């Protein structure tokens, strides 16, 4: 599974597969901190006189997120009637996630959320959080789980999720994939 920090999606061109045109660029990521879900993107115009676009790109209208561009099937994927929800960098809406302390159910402080991690490809979604370690320099990555409890300042994760914490993004991609297949096993 290929992963990206949500903040690295900002500034990427939004390109139509049908026309090969760059119709917009990502201004900000819209994220629902309570549901731990990627909602979509707010957009800027492309070019020298770039300004904010009223249009919004919902996550279900995205054909794929890649390291170099966000792809849409055609320009009609951009919804110019929708009201843009509050994006990630607007602190009030981001507060449910960024800056939260993450604790495991056994009371261990795992660190503070510094970034939302998205899976790339044709079904982009939020899969984890990057945490700044409370004890040493550097960060780690914890998978998003259905059982995460959120209070507005703390996020509590089940103990079994902690074994999938990784220190690097590439390793975390593999960890998320195996965590998800474990979860599927349990549901059977």
């Amino acid at each position: 599974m290929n992963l990206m920090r949500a903040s690295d999606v900002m500034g990427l061109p939004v390109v139509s597969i049908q026309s090969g045109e760059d119709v917009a660029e990502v201004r900000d990521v819209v994220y629902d901190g309570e549901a731990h879900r990627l909602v979509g993107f707010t957009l800027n115009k492309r070019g020298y006189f770039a300004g904010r676009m009223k249009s919004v790109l919902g996550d279900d209208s995205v054909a794929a997120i890649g390291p170099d561009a966000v792809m849409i099937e055609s320009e009609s994927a951009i919804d110019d009637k929708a009201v843009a929800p509050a994006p990630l960098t607007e602190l009030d809406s981001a507060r449910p996630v960024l800056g939260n302390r993450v604790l495991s159910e056994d009371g261990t402080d795992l660190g503070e959320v510094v970034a939302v991690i998205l899976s790339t490809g044709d079904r982009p979604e939020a899969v984890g959080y990057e945490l700044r370690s409370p004890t040493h320099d550097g960060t780690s990555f914890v998978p998003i789980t259905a059982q995460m409890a959120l209070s507005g300042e703390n996020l509590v994760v089940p103990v079994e999720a902690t074994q999938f914490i990784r220190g690097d993004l590439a390793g975390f991609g593999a960890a998320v994939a195996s965590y998800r297949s474990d979860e599927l096993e349990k549901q059977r």
Partner: protein
Amino acid sequence: MSIETFKQVDGRTVIASDSADTIGHVKGFVLDAAGRQIEAIHVDGRGKNASVVDWATLTAFGQDAVMVPSESDRATVHDGHQTEAVKGKVGMVGSRVLTVEGRSAGKVVDAEFDTETGAIVRVITDNGAVDAGRVRSLGSYALVVELEEAHS
């Protein structure tokens, strides 16, 4: 079917059959938005004054010359799409290549086309060749291509 590349044919003389006059040289191509078919050949002039010959009017795209019935088949660019192409805003060679997954895949170096039909056969990038069947579009930002089948 005879295949040539854009670079091979660059500068080739364009001749009117009725007068035997040279009416221009191959300077570039106007492609359809899908990036798979040559619509017209840029034969003379620049920008708004550029003139083109529609592919459909050609009698032959020969090894030594491109033949059109008459000088009257040469026309000044007549729409925005053609103007963008002759100005180099939308062009195959030099275009950025982007996969449908949003990953950069180099730049277009050259393209092979069928001299009978004007259909693009393969696009040559600095990252390898791409069959025309994988090309989704050619726009001012990029040539968008499907991913290659997974290697088994």
